[in-house]
């Protein structure tokens, strides 16, 4: 075995200081880490390491043009994300990245753009939205559809309100269920798709959320007339290495960490229709 060719070196995290932790919802927080994102593109992810606990694949959720910090929005669902969620400013965390593919922003230029985020799925889309807004003239209509299970689970609420106030974005927000004091839209996010005011054949769609939501979003978008080749989703799988080495994230022949997470929907449509693929 030749140590010089050992890919194990790629597993070493760098240490980063936590600058801020902003609570988003009851179980979700956005952490700001010192140091830039090493030129990440929206849709990519980093491996975030809690010392002595483990690593988790976490999407970039912040501004891709900031060279001094990175942001990750983390939902506490297990040991590692629990440890990340418990961080305080001044703490340190391990970090390596960026990994994976990004949203097809270049490809989408000159056409209409539909962004659909469900739940925490809005996090990996946020850098794309920020990149689009920094270069708003390059796109025609831009629609952002946001869904969450309940009003309290909506991420980036202040920013959503800002985006909704703009005349150059169509932002719709809906929740699956709500108490009586919610005056907004109720229903799954896919139900907003038929009402989109876009030119379907010139539309690129970027969808991220639970697998079933992405599948039905793709169906609705195609029904609207968006060609399937213009649909992009971000697939989520258990990721341990992020460099197509550990085998965990495989979906068919796809290493989700390497050939994804963002993939053309056509690449995974068949697999998404099969239970437990």
């Amino acid at each position, binding site marked *: *075995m*030749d*140590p010089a*060719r*050992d*890919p*194990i*070196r790629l*597993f*070493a*995290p760098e*240490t980063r*200081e936590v600058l801020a932790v902003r609570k988003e919802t009851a179980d979700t927080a956005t952490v700001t880490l010192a140091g830039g994102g090493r030129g990440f593109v929206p849709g990519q992810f980093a491996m975030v390491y809690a*010392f*002595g*606990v*483990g*690593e988790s694949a976490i999407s970039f959720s912040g501004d891709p043009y900031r060279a001094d910090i990175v942001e990750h929005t983390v*939902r506490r*669902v*297990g040991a590692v*994300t629990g440890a990340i969620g418990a961080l305080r400013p001044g*703490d*340190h*965390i*391990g970090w390596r990245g960026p990994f994976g593919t990004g949203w097809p922003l270049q490809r989408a230029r000159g056409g209409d753009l539909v962004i659909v985020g469900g739940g925490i799925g809005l996090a990996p889309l946020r850098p794309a939205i920020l990149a689009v807004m920094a270069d708003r003239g390059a796109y025609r209509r831009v629609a952002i559809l946001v869904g969450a299970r309940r009003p309290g689970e909506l991420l980036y609420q202040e920013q959503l309100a800002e985006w909704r106030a703009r005349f150059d974005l169509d932002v719709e927000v809906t929740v699956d269920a709500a108490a009586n004091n919610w005056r907004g839209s109720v229903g799954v996010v896919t139900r907003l798709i038929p009402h989109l005011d876009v030119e379907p054949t010139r539309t690129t769609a970027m969808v991220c959320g639970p697998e079933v939501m992405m599948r039905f979003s793709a169906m609705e978008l195609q029904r609207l007339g968006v060609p399937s080749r213009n649909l992009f989703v971000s697939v*989520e*799988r*258990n990721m*341990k*290495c992020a460099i197509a*080495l*550990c*085998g*965990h994230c*495989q979906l*068919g*022949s796809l*290493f989700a960490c390497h050939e994804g997470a963002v993939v053309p929907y056509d690449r995974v449509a*068949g*697999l998404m229709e*099969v*239970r*437990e*693929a």
Partner: protein
Amino acid sequence: MDRRLLTPEGVRSLLAMLREDGFRIVAPSLVGGTVSLAEISDLDELAVGLALEVAPGRTRVVPSPAMFGSIGGPESLKRWQHPSQRVIWHGERGKNGFTGSAVVEESAGPVAFFGLRACDLAGARVLAKAIRRPLGEQDLVISVRCTSSAPTCFCTTMGTGPDVPEAAADLILTEVLEPKPRFVATAASERGAALLGRAASKPASAADAAAADALVAKVAADMPVAFAPEAARAALGTPSGIGWEDIGARCMACGNCTAVCPTCFCTTVVDRTDPAATVADRIMRWDSCYTPWFSEMHGGSVRSSISARYRQWVSHKMSWWWEQFGTAGCVGCGRCIVWCPVGIDIRKEVEAAIERSTAHV
């Protein structure tokens, strides 16, 4: 290349020379009640005159007229090429966060692998693609061509044996028993030729060489072709939700097949800390797609049923591997059949999948 004749003692002397040259020797040895590749510290540990009688879910050590007759032992080159457990990172917590660095293995010295079959070498080639880590250049490979096969063998189906391509080894031996035990040796590299040149040997006659080749050819001719690999690739390309209930009831998801498979490469990384969590080692170890945690995400496993896990494993081996690495992930060694506690035969499962896919068209 020139072919030479070695006596059984001559073969032992090759190994003795390699030891003197500083090689660690990995060869078939009687360990854990079976004959398996193992690192030996003494030539007496060689499993000489022993074979494995194997069947689905069953092995037994039996005497063998051949010096090196065993096929189907649990260990492949994977044990040395892709260690089952290794520390890859060490970190220490300090006042300001923590520091750490990658732990890159020191080589424990070159290894001479002895007694490797064609399927072992194919397995190492296929595994190297997945882990991006070939055998060390200093390692030496002495292959023994198969002059018998086990009922679990299907290398001819997968196109990996029983003949050994010269590019795969430094020295290739073929054991000929009649009229008296001897080895026909082919040096397949300069290092192999140099080694062979140091042993007492004489030129092999055309008749000796032909006898050796005929034995290998007979193994190939007698081995049934289990299925067409291209049909398997097509049948398992898109996961089908139907037809996997039966295997889900038989398979225990123990992961033995993935452990003994020479190409199964999946790993996980776990943290090991002291009680105060002031130091942490990150340990990479073999994982298996049969474990429930393999595909675990928030909300549970993607593949919670055993049926789905078996489908994942066999589809990856026979189909998706082609797209990923340009080859099948199976080399037809049959270890997964031998070491399955309930004797699940991948050949039959693949055949059934091919039948189902054609029946549904």
